[in-house]
């Protein structure tokens, strides 16, 4: 028997993950499907931590499992729909099944050509990656290699990613947001059935969330600031900040939150984060370096050339954190209130 890969437990996790995925898709009730999907994502985080991808697991837990499940629940809450069994389109389902099986077989045909799972000498781990591992300390004095690659070596990718989050927010805003005063589009008021429970009278939930929120926010700030040394960074910290506000929305109700966070403030700050990130890049251009080349900021930032990159990364992480926080809040509020920013989940 070939030397078994060390992750015997992971094969177990992988199988359960597949089971969770299939059940999430075949369930009738949409709400339970959303919950199972949340569980599926959390299991996925476990697998990734086992494989050494801690930052990705952290993001998946915060963004993938946490926020997207909340979005789905908000949508289902607003529409109150459950997948009513319709006459199944057997012919089309079989065709789709055939297409999926065919593509699957085609993909698996490349299996023998793949490197084994976890082999350190595979092309992926032996061409560009070693440079990052060996030179991060020399270049940017940041021990967490993932953060440097994220914000410095491939910083342009992260700028575009922040732009993606920003676009998602304004896209959802322009799709759903209906300014009932001016717009000509006629659509029915909220048609959702009144929720089974009335959140305002559950004392325990309100008090517990009221206590938890400040600690969540402090932890989130720690995550953003400490991203250089430990897993974490702009995305994860921003999502946790956003989640703390969303927690308030769910435990109390939208009006309570909208008193401090008006729609205008949320939308402006979403755009501001991207601006911070892009402005840092433009500043590097004006200081003589290429776009997003933090070395050019050295005269402005303390410490030697490498520390310029250290602080450059920090600035950029803050920009990302701001955008992600406010866009998560914005998206949640629009989805939850079916576009009217007044009442909702």
């Amino acid at each position, binding site marked *: 028997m070939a030397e078994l890969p060390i992750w015997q437990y992971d094969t177990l996790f992988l199988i359960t993950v597949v089971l969770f995925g299939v059940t999430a898709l075949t369930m009738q009730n949409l709400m339970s499907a959303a919950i199972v999907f949340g569980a599926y994502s959390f299991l996925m985080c476990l697998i990734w931590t086992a494989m050494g991808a801690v930052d990705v697991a952290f993001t998946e837990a915060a963004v*993938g499992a946490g926020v997207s499940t909340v979005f789905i629940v908000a*949508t289902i809450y607003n529409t109150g729909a459950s997948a009513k069994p319709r006459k199944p389109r057997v012919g089309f389902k079989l065709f789709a099944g055939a297409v999926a099986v065919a593509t699957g077989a085609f993909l698996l045909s490349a299996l023998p050509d793949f490197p084994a799972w976890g082999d350190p000498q595979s092309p992926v781990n032996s061409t560009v990656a070693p440079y990052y591992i060996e030179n991060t300390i020399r270049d940017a004095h940041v021990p967490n290699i993932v953060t440097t690659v994220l914000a410095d070596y491939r910083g342009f990718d992260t700028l575009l990613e922040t732009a993606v989050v920003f676009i998602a927010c304004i896209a959802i805003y322009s799709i759903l947001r209906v300014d009932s005063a001016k717009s000509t589009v006629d659509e029915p008021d909220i048609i959702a059935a009144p929720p089974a429970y009335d959140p305002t009278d559950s004392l325990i939930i309100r008090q517990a969330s009221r206590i938890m929120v400040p600690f969540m926010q402090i932890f989130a700030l720690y995550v953003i600031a400490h991203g250089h040394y430990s897993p974490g960074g702009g995305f994860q910290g921003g999502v946790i900040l956003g989640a703390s506000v969303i927690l308030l929305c769910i435990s109390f109700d939208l009006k309570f939150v909208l008193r401090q966070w008006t729609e205008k403030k949320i939308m402006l700050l979403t755009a501001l984060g991207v601006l911070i990130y892009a402005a840092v890049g433009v500043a590097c251009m004006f200081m003589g370096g290429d776009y997003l080349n933090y070395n050019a900021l050295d005269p402005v930032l303390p410490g030697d050339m490498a520390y310029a990159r250290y602080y450059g990364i920090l600035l950029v992480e803050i920009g990302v954190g701001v955008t992600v926080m406010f866009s998560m809040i914005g998206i949640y509020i629009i989805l939850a209130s079916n576009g009217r920013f007044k009442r909702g989940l």
Partner: protein
Amino acid sequence: MEEIVPKFNYIVVVILMMTGLWSMLAQSNLIKKCIGMAIFQTGIILFFISIGAKNNASIPIVAKEPLGQVLGQAHAPEGSQPPAKPELAAAKAKVYPDPPDVNKLTNPLTQILMLTAIVVGVATLGVGLALAQKVYQQHNSFDEDEILENQTK
């Protein structure tokens, strides 16, 4: 058998992706399509992460010896003021071992690609759900067949 076991992760990846693809194509419920889309994307993320993983390698953070040990004062006597700035910077520099061993740390590149993919996935999911919600406002149903009948009416 020795062909399958060391490459088990790719099989799981393909299964996950194909369930996602199947549900995007065949499911008539719009929300189910969105969930299927999310599962398809997580499948791809699993593929990328598993090609970057290395046997018995730790997380990609360069471990450093404690600063005190490097400065030679395991426990600083009281009253002695901290060393001057340049020695501190020099010590800090020396704190990290010379280039860390590549095989001991997992591949950071695949991980940051997947950070982007997760965030893009959530963004697309958000927009998909928004569209589904608006479709529900117009047609009062998530089911594709009902919507088609409603449109052609």
